[in-house]
């Protein structure tokens, strides 16, 4: 089943370790994401899924181990460092500022200033341009249901907020989008819309890491499934090679998969 491939992972982690005092978050964890695929990361509560993606996005610094983006070793000190490498993250705790409006949120931390002296000396924001481009990226993603781009995010529904967060992740020429349980708090319709957003992002050439506890959703959208257990990778399988209950068994340790039956290389 293993195919030899010369494709280089776009994101790779080797032997990552991270502990919080005596609690172990990651233990020699390996991870690969290949260009243009959706990889789902599943695992029990506390398996280290969030810790893994926080290391990959610079929100946490691993205690040891290596991380590579496009084959180049990276050392992220903040989320800005990973963004600079084209890695965008939608966190489990939605990292939006509720009082700010949609466009301010999309551009938070990378605001556009006006051209000329107004921007350089008076540091004036180009709100018009930001609003226009925010509107454009929401349109591109088919997130049309917001009333106004200047509506504060706290007045949006959960699904709309999530859409804003996903739009922000996909809006800035990013190569990799990481989503930590994006549908956990959403209803059926809103979840379906976010899953569609994920497929749209992939169709636009982005590579996606999706953390989710929802097996049907994982099997619906993922190309490969990375199963995390006790801080390390237990197996990588595909929706074709294994059933949902197999994956649950791997998660709980009731089943192990020999390496030659895993899918450690890309399928697309």
């Amino acid at each position: 089943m293993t195919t030899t491939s010369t494709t280089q992972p776009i994101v790779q982690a080797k032997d990552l370790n991270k502990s919080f005092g005596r609690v172990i978050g990651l233990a020699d964890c390996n991870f690969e994401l290949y260009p243009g695929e959706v990889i789902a990361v599943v695992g029990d509560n506390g398996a280290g899924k969030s810790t893994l993606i926080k290391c990959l996005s610079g929100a946490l610094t691993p205690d040891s181990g290596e991380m590579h983006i496009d084959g180049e070793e990276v050392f992220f000190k903040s989320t800005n460092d990973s963004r600079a490498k084209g890695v965008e993250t939608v966190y489990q705790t939605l990292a939006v500022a509720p009082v700010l409006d949609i466009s301010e949120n999309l551009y938070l931390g990378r605001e556009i200033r006006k051209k000329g002296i107004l921007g350089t000396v008076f540091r004036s924001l180009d709100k018009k341009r930001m609003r226009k481009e925010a509107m454009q990226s929401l349109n591109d993603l088919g997130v049309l249901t917001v009333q106004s781009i200047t509506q504060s995010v706290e007045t949006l529904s959960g699904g709309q907020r999530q859409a804003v967060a996903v739009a922000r992740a996909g809006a800035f020429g990013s190569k990799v989008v990481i989503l930590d349980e994006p549908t956990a708090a959403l209803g059926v319709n809103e979840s379906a819309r976010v899953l569609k957003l994920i497929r749209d992002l992939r169709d636009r050439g982005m590579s996606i890491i999706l953390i989710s506890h929802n097996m049907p959703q994982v099997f619906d959208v993922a190309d490969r499934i990375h199963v995390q257990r006790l801080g390390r990778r237990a197996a990588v399988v595909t929706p074709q090679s294994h059933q949902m209950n197999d994956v649950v068994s791997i998660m709980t340790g009731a089943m192990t998969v020999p390496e030659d039956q895993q899918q450690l290389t890309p399928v697309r």
Partner: protein
Amino acid sequence: MSSTAPTTAADEFAHRATPMQKVQSSLHRYPWLSPLVVLALLLVIFGVLGLVLGVGDLENLFKPGTISLMLQQTVIIGTLAIAQTLVILTAGIDLSIGAIMVFAQMFMANLAVYTTASNVTFMAGQNPVLAVFIGLIVATLAGGLNGFLIVRFNLPPFIVTLGTLSIFTALTLILFKARTIQGKEMPDFMLLMSTKLEIGPLTFTLGLIVMLLLYVLFAYILRGTAWGTHVYAVGDDPAAAELSGINVKRVLFSVYVVAGVVIGIAAWITIGRTAAASPNVAPEINLETITAVVIGGTSLFGGRGRLLGTLLGTFIIIVLDFGLSLAGLDQAYRVLAIGVLVIAAVAVDQWIRKVKV
């Protein structure tokens, strides 16, 4: 994305909003509306009482002379309340603003005037321009000290500024021996902010104009620059701001430094306003700045509020002050009224936080 037809459930819901919900969502969008309404109500009530019913000397409230005096009277609270607004927007609180202002103005005066009654005589007798400048730097450093302690050691602003309140009050007494320096002892430049300017029937002071310009400047900075957006984001949810790539500690530190600059300017304005530099110039000032900010509609929980509200809050305090005393009422009623307003403002804030548009 035209807004001509209701397209979403939220949209339809907005069209069915009850009057109360409309009020709530307007207050949510424009937090300065409630202080505006309060101020207007106050003026109407005092107007009816004074001009129609002839209560006490209340009719004098609307004479140009009184209006000028009220406006001039806003400068100390009003300027310091800008600094307080910045801090409260980050979900902090500054209890040391008054103490730092007093320290800075005493510093300025003791540099500019040669007096034997201080412990800093060795550096007294400076050029007044230099004295004011150094006073500004001192206030900025004092703000920076607050910011440093809060950011570096992760201490709550309440505790840090409670500490620096004592420290700067003590330093004022130790260094300057609590001696009031009168305006007539000072070089003219020290009193520059008291320069009078006739504007129509009203008399402004330079200090008042500087205060109003500071409001315009900071309103622009808060709403028109990235730094301002970051101040709101940090006050709203620091964790989310951090994950969005904002350096939360740097923003917080810079807020206290900028507050220090504003406090320094307020110190110079205060010397002009009171024609003196005195350690007990305004004993209630710190609480009054917080009051102005809170009744101005800025949330003590951070991230929500506008500078315009703070200006209106300052006006409310001053109008109450003048109105009640002209009506012949005891000072205690003014304190009572302020107390009621503060609690009402916090209650309104809690209510508008629950808004669903």
